[in-house]
């Protein structure tokens, strides 16, 4: 595979642009909507929600799990899964290098953490995504981990709680990334056939292939306030259709209005809300 015509893609311009945007965006702990600035431990204590204006900052997978589960109950599963490079994909750097770099930067093997836990005493399985790992993109490992989480939940006869945060399918894995859509869809079907529930939480952003697969198939769909959840991203819609986008394009609020989700749940309410649902789904 190594000698397969490795496409050389020059994305240096893109990277320069991203760097500029990052610089303009200011410090990651500065609230983008009200400009309040926080120490990291302050933000962590407030579940990374701006205490002044309620803006929801992104949450990494392990911190999300800590926010949701009863302390000390989380047991991680399949942490050792790693991605291969089926296409020999090369943009500015090889895909394998990007994977290694993402692992070093995030401490995660890929963009999803799965395992078992209890939430207010109720047993469940969790599948939590991490946007910091290559934009939370779904490749073979994310698809495999989600499928295994479904099987683990079905085996134990408990609900699965998924927390999505993803830009969509991982382009670097080409058509195999697309195949993770039907793969996770089939896994949800099996989970449902086993009589287990899927509670799907959509956080900012959940777009593309995630919304077109398991994230939309929960028995109950919850979203965080302001979360972008659209199949096509705003830029793609703008570029292909030249349509003027409404201010709340693809946001959780719009999706609630149009009937695509059951509730918008502020992060402070997420744990008790999931716990309620787990009790309601209990046999």
């Amino acid at each position, binding site marked *: *595979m*190594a*000698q*397969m*015509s490795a*496409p050389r*893609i020059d*994305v240096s*311009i*893109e990277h320069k642009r991203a760097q500029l945007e990052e610089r303009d965006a200011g410090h990651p702990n500065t609230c983008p909507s009200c400009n309040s600035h926080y120490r990291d431990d302050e933000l962590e204590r407030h579940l990374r929600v701006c205490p002044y204006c309620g803006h929801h900052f992104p949450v990494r997978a392990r911190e999300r799990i800590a926010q949701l589960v009863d302390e000390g109950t989380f047991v991680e599963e399949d942490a050792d*899964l790693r*991605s*291969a490079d089926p*296409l020999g*994909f090369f*943009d500015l750097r090889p895909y394998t290098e990007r994977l290694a770099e993402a692992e070093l930067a995030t401490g995660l093997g890929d963009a999803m953490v799965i395992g078992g836990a209890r939430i207010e005493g109720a047993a469940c399985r969790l599948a939590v995504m991490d946007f910091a790992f290559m934009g939370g993109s779904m*490749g*073979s*490992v994310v698809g*495999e981990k989600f499928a295994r989480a479904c099987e683990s939940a079905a085996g134990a006869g408990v609900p699965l709680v998924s927390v999505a945060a993803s830009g969509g*399918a991982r*382009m670097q*894995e*080409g*058509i*195999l*990334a*697309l*195949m*993770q*859509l*039907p*793969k996770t*869809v*089939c*896994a949800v*079907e099996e989970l449902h056939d086993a009589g287990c529930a899927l509670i799907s939480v959509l956080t900012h952003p959940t777009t593309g*292939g995630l919304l*077109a*697969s*398991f*994230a*939309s*198939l929960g028995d109950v769909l919850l979203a965080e306030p302001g979360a972008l959840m659209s*199949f*096509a991203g705003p*830029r*793609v*819609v703008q*570029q*292909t*259709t030249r*349509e003027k*986008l409404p201010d709340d*394009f*693809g946001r959780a609020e*719009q999706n609630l209005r*149009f*009937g*695509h989700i059951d509730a918008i749940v502020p992060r402070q309410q997420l744990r008790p809300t999931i716990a309620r649902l787990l009790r309601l789904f209990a046999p």
Partner: protein
Amino acid sequence: MTTEAELRLRERLSKLAGVRLLRGTKLSAELERLQEQLDRLTAEATDEEIWQRVLLARHADRPYTLDYVERMFDDFFELRGDRARLDDAAIVTGMGRLAGRTVVLVGQQKGRDLKERTLRNFGMAYPEGYRKAIRAMELADRHGFPLLALVDTPGAYPGVVAEQHGQGGAIARSQAAMARLGVPTVAVVIGEGGSGGAVALAVADKVLMQENAIYSVISPEGCASILWRDASQAQKAAAAFKPDAAHCLELGVIDGIVPEPAGGAHADPDLAAQLLREAVEGAFAELDGAAPLELRRARRAKFRAMGVLA
């Protein structure tokens, strides 16, 4: 391409011949074509060659779903509307006689002239189109009719209203509906297999691609617009993610390649339809007699296994 990858492809090709997927009198000619394809692949498909396939897959004269329906089906009756809101003309559904039995068809339909292209929205469905497809799938399941899906779309329509009507959820539910069916299902990518909008109709027991079709995670323009923020870099993007049939076969994503007339399907639509019909009938023949639950189990197991781990 390493020897190992080449061996895998050769193995797949011989397996194809072995399971009678492409059987009948055309067998040797078809194998020859596949062999040619393999030779071209091992001779290292250049970026230019991959782009040529993208152009052929999108050729303005390429036969579309209804061109094949006309040539393959007897007594085709179109089913219209999603029974909720409207009839999305980007997806055609219906039922007709194929090889002596009633088969339900779902497929995207592009337009031939400007007026029809507008009507069909260039084969880019709204959520209503996928809901119409789900309706046809459920009809097939209810009555035990096999389902044929012809996939040909640049992608699901990326528009404001499409999002408001739940594009992502509709695509997810269309896949879920296919994953539940207890009848034989065959999907063929006959042109562009663009992303989620394509896989929504392709969760089938047998997934085939025509020789010059493409099947990809994102349109070349979409990829270019994300990686370069410039849709005109599509050619480079296509070379990067290898959307051609041979690569999809090698990666285990599809079950077979349907040969086309020399020069592409548009060069001889009648022959293209005949080759497609033979491949589809062969695929259905392989699925004959399987119990509904067994079909469903095997279909889910097939997609469950897709992906490459380190």
